[in-house]
């Protein structure tokens, strides 16, 4: 009797599971950071506009957690940066990641072959690591690009950079800048923070906390303008390209093949300037990222 009951329960459970797999909404995830929230809201909005049922799991956690959630099937779709694929597949020394198109193609190929994950059309933006200095310093010392910054450091001027441990140690981070532009920052010229968030580093440079006058930042950081910081242009291309793109599980894409067509016009409109503006509205003006996403859609005619 108990075995029979158990068997029936098992059958019921498996039919339930199958039924839910068919009608299953697309679970959209994102990182806990600000841009993750923005891109996540945009995906939810676009899918809703395309009549695809969604479930929101925005703000799941840092990159590693979001990646684990996507691989395990806890989420179906999330925004990811092409440059991060270099770390996922331990290829961060390879120059291919410095080219937007080639890096995207490599990420898409590797992730599909190994994990059956599909990279959809990326945004024409690059959220790579940059070094930012206060606008006043940039004006006085004429610092516009990384070439200028390297000269400034070599001339023995007072420089102190606030950055995350990852940026300082990773081969694709500060060492890449130093090698390509030919400068070297000593340990006492660095203020190393453990987290990867740039708000604290930028705040330190803007306010001159502990003598900091340069900060690690992301190219699309919304706070750069508000904190009056100038992002030094990586003219010689030391850094990998971090283009945001939607990444979707093949199974979810098979159930809803339209996902690609729905998301590509959205990401196509996200260039560096728009991303910076949108990030700024959330980071600096403190608007809600869902509202900002919706207004962007209206302004660009993506929804009525």
């Amino acid at each position, binding site marked *: 009797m108990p075995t029979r009951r158990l068997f029936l329960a098992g059958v019921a459970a498996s039919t339930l599971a199958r039924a839910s797999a068919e009608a299953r909404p697309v679970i959209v995830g994102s990182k806990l950071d600000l841009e993750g929230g923005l891109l996540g809201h945009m995906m939810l909005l676009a899918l809703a506009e395309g009549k695809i049922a969604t479930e929101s799991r925005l703000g799941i956690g840092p990159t590693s957690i979001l990646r684990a959630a996507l691989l*395990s099937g806890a989420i179906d779709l999330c925004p990811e940066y092409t440059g991060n694929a270099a770390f996922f597949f331990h290829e961060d020394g390879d120059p291919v990641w410095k080219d937007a198109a080639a890096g995207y193609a490599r990420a898409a190929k590797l992730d599909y072959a190994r994990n059956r994950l599909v990279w959809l059309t990326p945004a024409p933006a690059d959220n790579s690591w940059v070094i930012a200095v206060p606008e006043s310093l940039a004006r006085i010392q004429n610092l516009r690009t990384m070439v200028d910054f390297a000269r400034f450091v070599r001339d023995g001027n007072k420089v102190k950079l606030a950055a995350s441990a990852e940026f300082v140690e990773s081969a694709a981070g500060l060492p890449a800048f130093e090698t390509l532009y030919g400068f070297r920052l000593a340990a006492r010229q660095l203020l190393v923070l453990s987290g990867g968030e740039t708000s604290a580093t930028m705040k330190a440079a*803007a306010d001159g906390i502990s003598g900091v006058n340069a900060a690690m930042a992301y190219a699309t950081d919304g706070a750069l303008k508000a904190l009056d910081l100038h992002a030094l242009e990586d003219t010689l291309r030391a850094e990998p390209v971090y283009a945001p793109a939607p990444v979707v599980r093949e199974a979810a894409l098979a159930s809803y093949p339209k996902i690609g067509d729905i998301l590509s016009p959205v990401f196509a409109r996200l260039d560096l300037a728009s991303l910076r503006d949108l990030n700024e509205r959330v980071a600096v003006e*403190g608007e809600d990222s869902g509202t900002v996403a919706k207004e962007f859609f209206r302004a660009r005619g993506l929804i009525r």
Partner: protein
Amino acid sequence: MRAGLFDKRFALVFGSNAETASMPKVHDRILLGLFSLGLVVIFSGGFLNCAPNRLATGVAYPLSQAPALETAAAMIGLCGLAFLSLAQGQKLRSFATILVAALILWGSLAGAGRLAAILMQAGPPATRASLGPAFWTLASVAILALVDAVQRGNFSFPARACIGAAFCASFLLMAATGAFDSLSLAREFLNNRGVFVNELLHHLGLVCAAIFFALMIGVPLTVLVLRKKAAGGFVFASLGILQTIPSIALFGVLIAPMSRLSELLPLLRSLGINGTGPAPAVLALTLYSLLPLVRSFYTGFSEVAMEVKDAAAAIGFGWRRLFIVVELPLALPALVSGLRVVTIQAIGLASVAALIGAGGLGTFIFQGIGQYALDLVLVGAIPVILLALLANFIFEMLLGLARRNL
């Protein structure tokens, strides 16, 4: 003649006698201490911090810049604390302290709200007015004075509940009329209003699930430890080691084995159990709950005197009756205390769960840290503190009931 009468009355109220006639005697050092703390911070710390936007460094405004009525209320209330510390008569002092605390709270809350509204109108639209150290100190001084007065005043339980409800209702009424809408903290909250209830429920869900599983595992473990003393050392040692693992590490360590488990067992996967999300969070919280739970349950039952049990057995109690009528009531206070510790600990620790995708109030805390937005951190942290206080209050009541039944 008149002066003499006043002196006499003064002496009556303030307990001065011949020796200390020139200097009134302090009857409540706590109130005097709170007054001094409030006074020092009012003059040294900013009441409101106003910045042109959410990230910029702002300018501190002292309490004196707030509208006169509210400033006066807070200052008069604060001086009232000093005055009351000299008053004799416990009951009267407690009653007056509650009124004075209400005055300070109203003055600082309404003052902050109105000053923020004024600053917002004067500045650009992205202007942010955040509560400063002087505000938080004044509010804490008022709340501490209030709690102290309620405890010392020996009020009945319904009276305490009424006082608490009156303060909460007044606060909510102020909030509903938009008194705080210009404050940065309120704006962060309103921005996240849509997800707030969801995350709050997530947080409570994690805590309840963890306590449920901790009881499911902890009760049999307690029975084992009570029956077989030899197992006790091993059980407590292993639970002790679990307790020493830093929370972020335990949450992180569980991801890999849980993912593998869900890959191997499709049933788990279809139930949504995998390496990230609520499952590992509940597991980690359960593991942390086990040591305090089993230890207090063990203590509760092992401290029931052997003589009592023998006497009950001698008058013919079976084991079931012995357990229900004798052991359980005697151990109940320890069991409730154990649950109290476990619940409060889980409410705090569940904040970390946001890092592994389990949601909860920690989401706001970590978003706030990442965006350097202290007020967003508070949107997550204040409810966590309030939940812990509420749990503490509920368990205190249950403890009172458990003791009364003895």
